[in-house]
């Protein structure tokens, strides 16, 4: 049986994808991985409330940033560091506390990056495995796995930008799998647990509520989802440090920034319009199909990205569902590639050296001397205007994709 597995096409795709990931893992560096691991390192010293701890001791640390994720991210990363400490070595703490220019040149930096990205590798491969469970035809399984394992978008996001979001993506995918098996309460709990890492999975909960066919299931979904996230966040809600750091940062504030002033202090918030439209379209459909649930999990992140200034790391939220959609509707492949290119291009135009060549700084600090793409473009064109133009085309493309998926007749 082992021989059959190893000789199978699916295994070869897995192994080839694994090889590509191993080649990249140690040699690309984004400072986020160091900052959040620096913060997570306090768990082994018995710090349970990282938000208050960082606020009270900020001036003693080399990194003064707040911990912007929800609590489960801290416990997960901190626990993993404790487990991995024999392999990280006794110089690892020194590296974490070194904010100097030369820190990327320390001996051992490749080892640290490799080991710190190992959980992401495991989850990445697990997502590949889970995706194959959602497809029945063997031929489609092979295509799907090849799309997941070889697409450059997820490889770049996970292994170059060291994306913590893969934890949450795994849970949202598990939620879909439970929904497929009609275990809606478990599906809701998965979204609740995912929201304990980062807020965004809570946007998927209304889709599950609409998908459920009776009132009892709908109430169980709400209880499972909100109850889980409530239990996770309850110990921290009274902490002002938590409120400042995690509740009013990143996604939670940017969603409200894209708005139209309609006078008398009121604003129309564009991402909320689009999200509400998606929920209502699903609600209005006569048959609440699983296929549209998948489309909803895809479209929610895409409409958010098309209407706010986003971080590149967030793009991972949509990729597994995009791949599922491509398998179901192969004609949409070109549109997805087009959207993928636009959506990736925009962050590379930001004025941030760690969006460009500085990602290679562990190979050599000389790469940090290269100008950003932003500053190169600035010499002959307005880079903000260019970002705006591309973002506008992206918004239009997502609108077309949304229309296409909503109009589809699902089985």
């Amino acid at each position, binding site marked *: 049986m082992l021989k059959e597995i190893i000789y199978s096409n699916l295994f070869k795709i897995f192994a080839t994808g694994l090889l590509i990931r191993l080649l990249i893992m140690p040699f690309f560096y984004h400072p986020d991985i160091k900052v959040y691991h620096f913060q997570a390192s306090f768990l082994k010293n018995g710090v349970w409330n990282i938000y208050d701890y960082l606020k009270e001791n900020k001036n003693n640390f080399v990194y003064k940033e707040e911990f912007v994720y929800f609590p489960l991210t801290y416990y997960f990363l901190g626990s993993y560091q404790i487990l991995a400490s024999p392999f990280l070595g006794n110089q690892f703490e020194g590296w974490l506390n070194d904010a*100097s220019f030369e820190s990327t040149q320390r001996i051992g930096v490749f080892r640290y990056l490799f080991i710190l990205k190992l959980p992401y590798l495991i989850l990445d491969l697990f997502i590949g495995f889970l995706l194959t469970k959602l497809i029945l035809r063997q031929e489609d399984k092979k295509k799907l796995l090849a799309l997941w394992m070889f697409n450059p978008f997820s490889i770049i996001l996970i292994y170059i930008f060291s994306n913590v979001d893969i934890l949450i993506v795994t849970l949202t995918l598990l939620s879909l799998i439970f929904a497929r098996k009609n275990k809606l309460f478990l599906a809701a709990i998965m979204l609740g647990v995912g929201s304990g890492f980062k807020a965004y999975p809570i946007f998927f909960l209304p889709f599950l509520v609409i998908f459920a066919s009776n009132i009892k299931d709908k109430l169980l979904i709400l209880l499972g989802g909100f109850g889980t996230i409530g239990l996770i966040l309850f110990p921290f809600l009274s902490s002002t440090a938590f409120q400042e750091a995690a509740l009013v940062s990143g996604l939670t504030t940017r969603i409200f920034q894209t708005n139209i002033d309609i006078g008398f202090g009121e604003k129309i918030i564009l991402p909320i319009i689009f999200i509400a439209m998606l929920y209502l379209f699903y609600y209005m459909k006569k048959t609440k199909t699983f296929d549209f649930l998948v489309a909803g999990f895809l479209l929610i992140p895409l409409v958010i990205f098309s209407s706010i200034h986003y971080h590149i790391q967030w793009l991972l939220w949509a990729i597994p569902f995009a791949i599922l959609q491509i398998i179901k509707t192969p004609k949409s492949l070109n549109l997805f590639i087009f959207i993928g290119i636009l959506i990736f291009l925009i962050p590379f135009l930001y004025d941030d050296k760690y969006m460009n060549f500085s990602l290679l700084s562990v190979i*050599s600090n*000389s*790469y940090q001397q290269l100008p950003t793409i932003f500053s190169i473009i600035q010499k002959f064109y307005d880079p903000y205007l260019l970002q705006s133009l591309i973002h506008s085309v992206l918004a239009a493309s997502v609108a077309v994709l949304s229309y296409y998926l909503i109009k589809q007749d699902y089985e």
Partner: protein
Amino acid sequence: MNKKVIIVYFLLILTTPFIISLGIKYLPENPQPEIKSYAKIYGENKFSQIIKPENNNLSAVGITFKNPNLRNKNNLHLEIKNDSGLTLVNKIVNGQVIGDGNFLRIKFPPIIDSINKNLIVNFSSENSIDNDALEISLTNNHNGMKPQLALATFYSPENPIFTGLDIYSDWFNKLFKDFNFMLTYFFLLFIIIILINLEKLKYKIAN
């Protein structure tokens, strides 16, 4: 199809750092030392430091400034002289473009034979006054002591291809110095390559 994918990714990973390195115009020589204090630069409050580059083609110096509320809109003057007093570099940067707390890298035409020469770096801002002065970063608390500038220096590579080769040499050197990791890492890669090609290898051995 798998083989082509591996080859494309492998070539990309191996060659991309080299190709990108061809665009590097400034290489760091000495990183900026730790900043311990700041001092105002205005009027007769000037700062100078002797540096001794370790490479030819010194082409930029970098230092951090404070410019609270971007109040300074006067000229900052950088002058570099050799030990004979000959001015080699004369650059002016306006305070308007100096952000508060920003590391400013001032570029100039390369000083070709800069290696091991004593060069005097002078910073001044004669038109500034105390209230709107820039603050220049120092590596010491200069109470009663000669201030030491927190200065970084950069040089232009003589040959971009050699730059790329140096980068690769440093890369593999750093990898080999973590011997246990390097061994484990290459062993893992080897095992996976074997697993991918197991069927073919078995066929070759059998025949």
